[in-house]
């Protein structure tokens, strides 16, 4: 089946294997291994990517379903070798331990902050409730997202 989509700002128009999950396409066909597989059933959020502005589990998306969509993965965030604001905040705040949950966590944070750069603690917790972290206890992750929001507000001149 031939489909067209945008991935990390690059246009694709290609023949794809129909019964493949988006997650496997990213990791195995394109070598974009930043997106992780934890549970494979929508429970852990390690596979989170953004499709048309919304955070989704790429383990629950069939590849043909992205036809006509705009997809962003963790690899699409840094520019010219420089980390983006959210990535930087995670590093600065020590919100990364083993790092397995981090790409998914950052994509959920990005989906939130792209719409709302002044989220409350509650809104932050809700945005990452589908992302499991076994290391950090979430506190530093929430701090990192708050710090990123503040940096975004500063650069947006608010």
């Amino acid at each position, binding site marked *: 089946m031939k489909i067209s989509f945008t991935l990390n700002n690059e246009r694709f128009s290609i023949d794809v294997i129909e019964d493949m999950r988006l997650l496997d396409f990213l990791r195995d066909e394109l070598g974009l291994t930043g997106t992780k597989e934890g549970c494979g059933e929508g429970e852990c*959020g390690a596979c989170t990517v953004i499709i048309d502005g919304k*955070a989704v589990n790429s383990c*629950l998306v*069939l590849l043909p379903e992205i036809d006509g969509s705009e997809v962003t993965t963790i690899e699409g965030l840094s520019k010219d070798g420089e980390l983006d604001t959210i990535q930087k905040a995670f590093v600065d705040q020590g919100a990364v331990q083993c790092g397995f949950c981090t790409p998914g966590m950052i994509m959920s944070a990005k*989906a939130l902050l792209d719409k709302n750069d002044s989220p409350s603690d509650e809104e932050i917790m809700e945005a990452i409730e589908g992302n499991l972290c076994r290391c950090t206890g979430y506190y530093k992750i929430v701090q990192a997202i708050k710090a990123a929001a503040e940096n975004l507000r500063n650069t947006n001149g608010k």
Partner: protein
Amino acid sequence: MSFDVQMPTSEEGLVSLLSKESSHILAGGTDLLVKIRLKRVIPKTIVSLRHLKGLDRIEDLGDKMRVGCRVTISELLNSEIISRHARILQMALRQIGSPQIRNRATLAGNIINASPAGDSIVAMVLSNASLSIGSANGERYERVVDFIRGPGVTTLSRGEFVKSITFEKTDVLFPQFHKVGQRNSMAISVASVGSLTSESEIRLAFGSVAPTVVVPIDACEYYSAEIDSFDEERFVELAMKCVTPIDDVRATAWYRTTVVRNLIHRTLKVWRKKGYNAV
């Protein structure tokens, strides 16, 4: 996995693909893809709704509302008319999964999955919802309570699909949705109790405590009949008649029974105080 994927753009195209053996509709995929992975469903053809024209709106029909089968849970939660006229649905949908799940999952898919724990089903039963079901032979209508026959079992037959869901506006009734789960919002519930209440009427529905979402009709009738001599213990006793829980990985039957009993008492208490801060 080995199947082909079709993306019809018209209802005619969709219906003709559904007549094929082992063809399954894909809406948000949050149930279907998990089932395929667990090999509980082995499809030959997946019919995606992604490029279907229409059936993607939330419509105000006066005293009712209609939701197309492609509308996601996130879209419903962001809808002005839903928050104004269907607060019970909003309360139930907030309890489903995570943002990632709600961004894909549809209301229609949640109903068709017919889980005893289906959160939207509780709200839809309380709102007297019915489905419009399309096929090559035209359209039929069925109430959600009649549509769901058992856990995962519905009256949908091959070649049929759910076009839309229609339900009553319930602005005048006081809504409550109580759910006890294991982990906040990801957990499929241990037990849930939804209700719509006024001075003269109560509508109640329970999730996860019987093979399907159930309505304790006797208790609801008792409430309306005995407004002056209402006895709470009697009411709860009548309501508990339809509670027939099982032991499973999430909870024991004893625990579920205790939870529902407490949630029914809480429902009455919150109604009397007209606010959740009463709890």
